[in-house]
């Protein structure tokens, strides 16, 4: 088995380095600078990305044995965390090598065990319910965290996407290319005012409609809240400088996010990578090496931009931002009844991978693992109960206190044995001081998903 040295990764990463000049926008002054600013950037791989092309790779011997597709056709290297835990990583992650001490890798993360649809699992990522509900991102921006809420919970600076990442109040698409027009038109328009006659009347009707418990009352309450915030938002948007057109898309994005964060316009940003990873079809699956190469290059560019963009005189954007990279789920090893060199893959909600770094995170760690690491490995009875045809790898049991993978092979599936997305979100909640009452449970009638304390600085 080949082992990648740090030098190898730096050399490989250097191939892509230098192609992006770092954005240096004029640093706007935050109107109300926080003593301990803390922001959140979620980078989404859309469609359910196969972790085996990044940080949960499998040896080629498994492909030769017909167990798992591998269109990269190269032996992965060993990626060792500061905590001594290892995973296999493909060369496609090389652009991230310069940042390896700035993020941790979480493997074998369970999404919703009961559903394998995109919508249900994207809902689960955001809200903890396959049917949707309150996204965790607005919770990071609540007054109850002890911070003054920013005007918007999050901005979505990427092109419209087919996923439901922004269908939450306060999470709004705001793209660099539309920003200039918006700011320009807003400067010429009359902002909503609460102190004129018609403003008072509109507010009075919203207040009247907001009484009670019905759907319209709830909508009117959101409108009222929006109206309260609108004048301040208007002022901030008018100050917002559109990123220079000469910058690359990633540079424009980082510049826009930095502006939004500095102006207290939004607490979070959601960046949806343009590559589509839902590769049921063999021809699409064969494009995964290229798609992942592009996606990883973009992630690296975003990391680089965050490090190079100042938040203020002392801190970079990376210093004040927690960054997470996630997909709605992973993928099966192969599709049934298709040749191993001509197969697509299906959805796998039992083993997702998450990268997390930046403010508040102990970085450089490898946490968790998925099972079936080689062609000879046996599946546990718990695995066979959930996936009798062995199409999927599944997260391995983990000691959530020490964050070490357990060696046992459970006889029955119990979600409490595993690393779940609920624990990842609760760890974010813990960092952002979101009250315990909002923490996710592991499942219905089950206890709270444990915070991954070992992941926190």
């Amino acid at each position: 088995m080949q082992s990648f040295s740090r030098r190898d990764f730096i050399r490989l990463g250097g191939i892509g380095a230098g192609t992006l000049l770092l954005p240096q926008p004029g640093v706007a002054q935050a109107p109300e600078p926080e003593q301990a600013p803390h922001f959140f950037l979620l980078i989404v791989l859309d469609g359910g990305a196969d972790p085996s092309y990044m940080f949960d790779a499998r040896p080629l011997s498994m492909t030769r044995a017909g167990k798992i597709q591998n269109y990269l056709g190269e032996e992965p290297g060993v990626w060792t965390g500061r905590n001594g835990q290892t995973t296999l990583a493909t060369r496609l992650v090389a652009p991230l090598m310069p940042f390896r001490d700035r993020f941790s890798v979480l493997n074998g993360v369970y999404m919703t065990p009961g559903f394998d649809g995109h919508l249900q699992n994207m809902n689960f990522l955001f809200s903890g319910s396959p049917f949707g509900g309150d996204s965790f991102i607005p919770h990071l921006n609540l007054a109850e965290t002890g911070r003054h809420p920013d005007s918007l919970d999050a901005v979505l600076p990427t092109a419209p996407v087919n996923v439901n990442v922004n269908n939450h109040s306060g999470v709004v698409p705001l793209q660099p290319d539309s920003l200039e027009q918006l700011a320009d038109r807003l400067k010429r328009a009359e902002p909503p005012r609460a102190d004129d006659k018609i403003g008072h009347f509109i507010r009075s009707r919203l207040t009247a409609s907001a009484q009670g418990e019905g759907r319209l009352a709830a909508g009117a309450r959101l409108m009222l809240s929006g109206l309260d915030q609108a004048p301040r938002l208007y002022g901030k948007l008018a100050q917002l400088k559109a990123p220079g057109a000469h910058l690359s898309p990633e540079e424009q994005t980082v510049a826009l996010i930095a502006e939004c964060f500095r102006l207290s316009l939004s607490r979070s940003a959601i960046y949806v990578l343009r590559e589509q990873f839902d590769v049921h079809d063999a021809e699409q699956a064969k494009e995964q090496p290229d798609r992942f190469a592009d996606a990883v290059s973009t992630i690296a560019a975003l990391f680089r931009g965050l490090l190079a963009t100042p938040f203020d005189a002392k801190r970079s954007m990376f210093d004040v931002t927690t960054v997470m990279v996630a997909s709605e789920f992973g993928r099966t090893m192969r599709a049934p009844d298709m040749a191993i060199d001509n197969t697509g893959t299906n959805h796998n909600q039992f083993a997702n991978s998450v990268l997390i770094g930046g403010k508040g995170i102990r970085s450089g760690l490898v946490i968790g693992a998925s099972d079936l690491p080689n062609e000879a490995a046996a599946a546990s009875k718990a695995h066979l109960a959930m996936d009798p045809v062995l199409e999927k790898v599944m997260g391995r049991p983990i000691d959530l206190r020490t964050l070490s993978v357990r060696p046992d092979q459970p006889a029955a599936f119990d979600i409490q044995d595993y690393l779940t997305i609920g624990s990842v979100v609760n760890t974010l909640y813990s960092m952002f001081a979101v009250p315990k009452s909002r923490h996710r449970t592991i499942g219905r009638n089950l206890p709270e998903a444990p915070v991954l304390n070992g992941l926190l600085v």
Partner: protein
Amino acid sequence: MSWLVAAALMLVFCLAAGRSEAQTSQFKGWTAISRELSIRVAPAGKPLDLSDFLPSEDMVELLGTWSAFGSEHSFRNGLPNALNLMIWHVTLSGFAKAVGDTCHTPRIEFHPRFISTLQKLCTWPSAGAKDERVLLDFWMGVMGHNASRQEFEAWRDFILREYKNNRAEETIAAMTLGITMNPHFLLHR
């Protein structure tokens, strides 16, 4: 038989998926509002073009829009927030001003019945313009049957009280904005 079970399961899941957002009314969206207004006030076959009043054309999506992903359909950006509220306000303020401007420099084509109501209102603050029937015609012309009589009375009393001596175009603009920013007009019931 299995397809029947699958279809039933799909239906259950779709119904359940809608449940979370069923707790809060969302904006009807740009397309629906444009269509409603066109049906009520525009001449037959000539729908209103409200896009002139938007801060920018690609803001339409921010005001509530349908999207499809495979068999999954969802309505996005419909929950009110500070930004879409502000865009609605800017857009509808522009529309309201254009309705008011009809008294001297018409910019929008309306159907004859609505024009007839506007002509009466353009005599504001005359007693004829303040007639209950004229005010109700204007209210129904814009709001339709979306809101209760109570909402109309609150709007009528506000206009008669606060705009009793104002200029017609200013009053009509306030009337229009007062209706179009009402949650009964903008939100799904």
